[in-house]
């Protein structure tokens, strides 16, 4: 099958910390120590208050940032930099406006071993997967936000990654589009069985999507709590079970958010 050679890999985050040095010479602990073991093909969702370092964590997983201490293993390989094997969906879509929809999805496929023809076949296959095959030759500027993010999802899956990093991918979308894309993402994830690390502000989104939810503490971000969500999909977000979980997570998040404003704490951002 085209574009489905890979499977999800295990991702081990081992005693990771990130400390920033400010210009005045002090160092600010942004993250950790954090240790997480993400099973292969698991859908992991991380929620946390603003400024808790969850984006920093994702940047480290992507290979854009080096951790101060600790390491991350993909399978058995430590992360040394960005890799096409760890694909990414960004909140602001990050599509290339000078390329057509199809060319955007083809972007990651420009390697010698893939012919031009195969490249557009793979890209079209993934556009079909997100229902945008008829928009292949459009400019990305002509698309709505929800359509742009579908193109970004197609681009991210087209490179056949073993790990998918998603940085608040639906944060900029309206509620209805968001619901729709959540469903589509679950369908694609179910078909492709990749490991997903998904960051969000939305507790409801976390519960709807996740195999496991991690709640992060206020800065420096650590794992404050963890839930396995066992309810079968598609989940009814109005069910009592979900509502109860939502209440528990909100209670924790409220506690952590308040810490940001507690006397003596550093205000993030």
């Amino acid at each position, binding site marked *: 099958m085209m574009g489905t050679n890979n499977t999800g890999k295990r991702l081990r985050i081992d005693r990771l910390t990130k400390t920033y040095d400010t210009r005045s010479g002090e160092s600010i602990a942004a993250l950790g120590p954090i240790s997480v073991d993400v099973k292969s093909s698991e859908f992991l969702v991380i929620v946390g208050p603003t400024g808790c370092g969850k984006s920093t964590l994702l940047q480290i997983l992507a290979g854009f940032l080096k951790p101060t201490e600790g390491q991350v293993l993909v399978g058995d390989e430590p992360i040394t930099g960005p890799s096409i094997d760890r694909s990414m969906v960004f909140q602001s879509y990050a599509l*290339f406006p000078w390329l057509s929809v199809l060319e955007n999805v083809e972007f990651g496929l420009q390697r010698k071993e893939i012919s031009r023809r195969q490249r557009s076949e793979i890209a079209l296959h993934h556009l079909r997967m997100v229902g945008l095959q008829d928009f292949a030759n459009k400019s990305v500027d002509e698309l709505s936000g929800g359509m742009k993010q579908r193109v970004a999802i197609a681009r991210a899956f087209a490179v056949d990654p073993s790990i998918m990093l998603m940085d608040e991918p639906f944060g900029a979308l309206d509620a209805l589009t968001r619901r729709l894309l959540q469903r589509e993402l679950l369908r694609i994830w179910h078909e492709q069985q990749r490991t997903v690390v998904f960051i969000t502000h939305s507790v409801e989104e976390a519960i709807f999507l996740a195999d496991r939810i991690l709640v992060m503490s206020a800065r420096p971000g650590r794992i404050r709590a963890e839930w396995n969500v066992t309810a079968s999909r598609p989940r009814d977000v109005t069910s009592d079970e979900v509502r109860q979980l939502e209440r528990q997570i909100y209670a924790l998040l409220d506690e952590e958010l308040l810490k940001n404003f507690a006397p003596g704490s550093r205000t993030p951002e």
Partner: protein
Amino acid sequence: MASRFAPLAKAARALPFVYAAIAIVVVWQLVVSVTKPEPSVLPPPSAVVIAFGHLLRNGELGVDTAYSLARVVFAWLLSAVVAIPLGLLMGSSQRLERIVNPFVELLRPISPLAWIPMAILWFGIGESGKIFVVFIGTFFPILLSTVAGVKEVDPVLLHAGRVFGCTSRATLFRRVVVPAAMPSVVVGLRVAFGTGWAAIIAAELVAAHTGLGYLIANGMDVLRADLVLVGMIAIGVLGFLFDAFFRYAQRRYSRRGR
């Protein structure tokens, strides 16, 4: 249905410019009718229309326009060939920018017009001197907007480029930085064409036997204000049309890929 009226809507956008042109002519005619100046100081619009027809028929206007335009286009292309690569490199290398920037900032305040005397001393009144002046006038706008274009590339696009296979700096530069900076480069080219057009007229005023600048300088020498005004109107209308063309090209570029 809407598309049937699209040409009409486009024409409607040109209307304010037509009104402004008419207003200028009306005020001009009023000034002439009220103050009755010597035709060598301010001829009526009708005299200028006659002179325009004359210069058009005997080919002088066409030849002068072609000379001015050829000089600008040549020098502008030369500028682009040097300034775009240099700007792309300066935008992506802080070290290079630190070295080149002081030269840019020291030379840039010297108007291209201030270079005309040196251009004449160095190159005489041949073509190279005028090309040189226009080169100076077009170089900095292209360079600066190219540098800005590179520096303002959205960092998230660089991240996306790196995730999706641009493993070396060179690949990232070629596949993401350069195309992302292009709209800003096109703005630089447009602005530069305008400054180049202004510079060539000035250079031709001082040292030329051809070109629209020469046409108006010569009109002044022989006390023919009608010729001067024909030249000025040609300069204005052409400058306006070039700019409109570049704006159109810019819009087309930003919508590429359909």
